[in-house]
């Protein structure tokens, strides 16, 4: 696995590997993480990759055998504990649709962390060779993109 991030094992992040923060558990739920782990660009440009099932306003983590939905503040608290976070330039969310709203998860996470966040505007699909694409459909006909969210874009009070 490429990347310089150290292994990080707080209770909520068991299973995190060098090069990313993965909130996915095991079995079918981790198919995305397994495919994405083969990507060539891990922690690109000083960003930390965060891998999780997500939507416009939440991400999902596996912790203690349970599936828990977190809003951006809660996720931000976890991410801040990651040793490499302080020196990082920001976060890349490998998490579906977290960048789909200008007032959604990615924007509020950027506000919470005080760092830039890159997030997909639609579903993120991961192929077994590590290649990923952003599209609402698996045929990649309704394409999306990774959007950049800077801190202060939307006031914190609107967090969901």
């Amino acid at each position, binding site marked *: 696995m490429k990347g310089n991030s150290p292994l990080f094992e707080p209770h909520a992040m068991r299973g995190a590997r060098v090069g990313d923060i993965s909130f996915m558990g095991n079995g*079918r739920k981790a198919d*995305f993480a397994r495919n994405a782990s083969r990507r060539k660009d891990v922690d690109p440009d000083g960003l930390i990759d965060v891998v999780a099932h997500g939507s416009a306003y939440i991400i999902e983590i596996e912790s203690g055998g349970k599936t828990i939905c977190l809003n951006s503040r809660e996720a931000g608290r976890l991410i801040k504990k990651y040793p490499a976070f302080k020196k990082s330039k920001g976060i890349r969310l490998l998490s579906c649709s977290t960048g789909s709203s200008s007032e959604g998860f990615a924007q509020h996470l950027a506000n919470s962390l005080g760092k830039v966040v890159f997030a997909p505007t639609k579903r993120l699909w991961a192929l077994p060779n590590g290649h990923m694409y952003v599209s609402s459909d698996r*045929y990649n006909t309704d394409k999306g993109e990774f959007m950049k969210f800077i801190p202060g874009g939307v006031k914190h009070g609107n967090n969901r």
Partner: protein
Amino acid sequence: MVITDKCPECSAALEEKREGSALTYICSKCGWSVATTDFEPIDLDQTVYSITLIDGNVPSKRKLSALSKITGKNFIECSTLIKTNGVVMSGKARKVIEYRDILNDAELKFDINPHFKY
């Protein structure tokens, strides 16, 4: 790579597999897969719902037990909750379903607001 309904490696049909919010299309022949996230609408619902007790509830051990389990309150507090048609909980849809089942099992009468479509 063009993604179709067939495996790009061996041309076998792809099968859809789900586990919770995880969605994977996988080839049963060679194991090739493409994976993503697909939440159920209920998990994306950001509405905060309230469950409120309504007229017709008479405190019984079974009802008090159910309320105590949900609210964490003692039986005396739960009895007051029944007598005053109090709010049992406020929360997101998944939690409402969980508590709704407990209340129904205990034959407690309640309302959910706003309108709960699940």
